[in-house]
């Protein structure tokens, strides 16, 4: 993270970024003054989860060069396995450890499925495709997304499979806003997972190897890193995080085939805003997008939540084609 902080402080020398950050802060203050503190609390809760989904997306792009269009479908897998596990544990519901077991199982399912997808598809492509890697994998992930959505429909149908709440205690009060226990749970899970991801990437041997692969593949190969395994691991971590986010948000997103569409869109806006492949930036941008959505929903109407962020992102891109913090990855993956 210190690296991210360093890069951030360097970015502040750019007037465009400084202006944008100032604009976001102004938006936050405006929202709180005119709308109320709930906008801030809302943005923090949803922003944390968006950051989690988007961090995985940024990671796969940064390390493997795969712009994953199926990230939302791994979120869907998380909601589905969360639902199945939670209902299977119905005998012991109410015990405080059940939600934790549920989301851990979802994490495992997403992780294993991601590893399988990488072995079945991307490892095969690596051997065959020499040019146009980014666009080709993008199209392949479109295919993966279509298959996963319709496999869900084929096997489990189109009904909403949801739960009312993981915890049914009274809501707690933050800044005069009452926050349901499930949302407290969600933000805690997101915070712990992001911290865990950051620790993994910064300090562990595996994380160092993953970063080496993302920076210099031949170099990583030369020092004896198993590049193929690191890529599989990266994809598995990323899909595991998405599934974890899905299971955690099950109370808000009941599982059905297209549940991943909204998280996918949001994750992509976040990642584009941050600059593709920038994991630290994605966490910051997750909160920015959530703030933007909360403000749009309150001041313009929730129907426009899907319009304003997209339009704004395209405008920001027009000013900064590589996103807010995207300088580092520019040369490697532009093709």
């Amino acid at each position, binding site marked *: 993270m210190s690296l991210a902080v360093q890069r951030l402080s360097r970015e502040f020398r750019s007037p465009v970024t400084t202006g944008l950050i100032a604009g976001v802060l102004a938006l936050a203050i405006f929202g709180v003054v005119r709308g109320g503190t709930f906008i801030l609390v809302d943005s923090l809760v949803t922003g944390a989860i968006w950051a989690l989904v988007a961090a995985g997306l940024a990671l796969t792009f940064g390390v493997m060069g795969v712009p994953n269009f199926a990230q939302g479908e791994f979120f869907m897998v998380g909601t589905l396995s969360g639902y199945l596990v939670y209902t299977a544990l119905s005998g012991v519901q109410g015990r405080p450890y059940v939600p934790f077991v549920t989301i851990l199982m979802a994490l495992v399912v997403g992780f294993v499925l991601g590893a399988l997808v990488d072995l079945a598809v991307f490892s095969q492509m690596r051997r065959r495709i020499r*040019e146009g890697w980014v666009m080709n994998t993008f199209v*392949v992930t479109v295919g993966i997304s*279509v298959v996963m959505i319709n496999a869900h429909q084929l096997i489990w149908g189109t009904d909403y499979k949801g739960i009312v709440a993981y915890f049914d205690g009274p809501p707690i009060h933050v800044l005069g806003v009452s926050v349901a226990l499930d949302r407290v749970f969600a933000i805690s899970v997101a915070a712990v997972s992001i911290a865990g991801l950051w620790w993994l990437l910064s300090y562990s041997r595996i994380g160092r190897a993953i970063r080496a692969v993302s920076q210099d*593949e031949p170099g990583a190969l030369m020092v004896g890193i198993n590049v193929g395994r690191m890529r599989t691991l990266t994809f598995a971590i990323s899909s595991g995080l998405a599934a974890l986010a899905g299971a955690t948000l099950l109370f808000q997103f009941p599982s059905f085939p297209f549940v991943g569409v909204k998280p996918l869109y949001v994750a992509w806006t976040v990642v584009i805003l941050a600059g593709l492949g920038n994991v630290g930036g994605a966490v910051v941008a997750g909160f920015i997008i959530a703030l933007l959505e909360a403000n749009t929903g309150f001041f313009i109407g929730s129907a426009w939540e899907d319009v304003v962020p997209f339009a704004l992102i*395209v405008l920001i891109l027009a000013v900064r084609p590589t996103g807010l913090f995207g300088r580092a990855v520019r040369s490697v993956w*532009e093709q």
Partner: protein
Amino acid sequence: MTAFLWRRRGLGVALLALAVLPLVPPFDAENFRRWLVISALLAGWAIAFDFTAGYINVVNFGFAAFAGAGGYASALVTIHYGLPIWVSMFAGVILAGILGFLTGVLTLRFRGIYAAVAAWFLGLALLGITRNVSPITRGPLGLIVPTFFSTDSNLPYYYVVLAMMLVTYLVLKAVTESRAGLAFRAIGQNMEAARASGVNPTRYRILNFTLSCMFAGWLGAFYAHYYAILTPDVMATSQTVQVLVAAYLGGRGSLWGPAAAAFPLVFSTEWLRSNLDRFPGLDLVVYGLALILVMVYYPGGFAELVHAIRDRRLRLPGLRMRTAAAPQPGEAGAVLSDVRE
């Protein structure tokens, strides 16, 4: 002129076959004719899509939104001004062209995935706007649109859309065979090298986007006046995905490949959908698997297969090798990438 026609003898044969097809059993059944209409429409869209994806190498991921905008423009003009459909369709062309032009301008500085995502977001924003300005578009309820003909038969619609597909193909093919086409390919392969050799990427990228979207909007207008009901769903990403699947299965950068792939694609998915309705979603699972398999094992698609057979690079039973096999492109690259692995 003779040479021009002779080079297009394959197109002539294909067109003749397509024109006769709805009159021959079993294809003269009304549901088969409907599938033919859908196929020809998808073929036209796939050609327009490939014109961008296969040449300047930018995937217009908001494609369906531009096509749908063309449909809405045409529908609204006929409804409010009572103009004949043949005229109002050009409102669709103009609106989609303007949107394509603006997208081209906005995404100029982006490459590859950034341009695709920017076009996607613009498409999503357009979809959201269409859904939200319900006083004009009636939102998700959908517009009731006058149709071309007052008949229930699909046959006249089929010939209309076949003609539109043909015009799309001929115009875009002519452009790709002109100097502009050369410039497109140069930009698509290596923008810096193209710029260094005096190609102005700005002008050609905008030209490409505008043309592609104009034809998308034109065919979108056909969609509106064929289905008679127009909902914002026509602009959804899943529609773009359909066009993209046809274009990639057919093979990028050939224009005819995507069109040829659209017919078997629509027929197989529609057949699966109507015969295996106990398994909803199975048709799209097959769809997605086909896309993945082609992209992983044969990214050149159908057009590459035909080229390989024609150039006798591929040994097929019954085809005698008359010339020595041409060297595989990128054999040296294969060795290099093996080393990298």
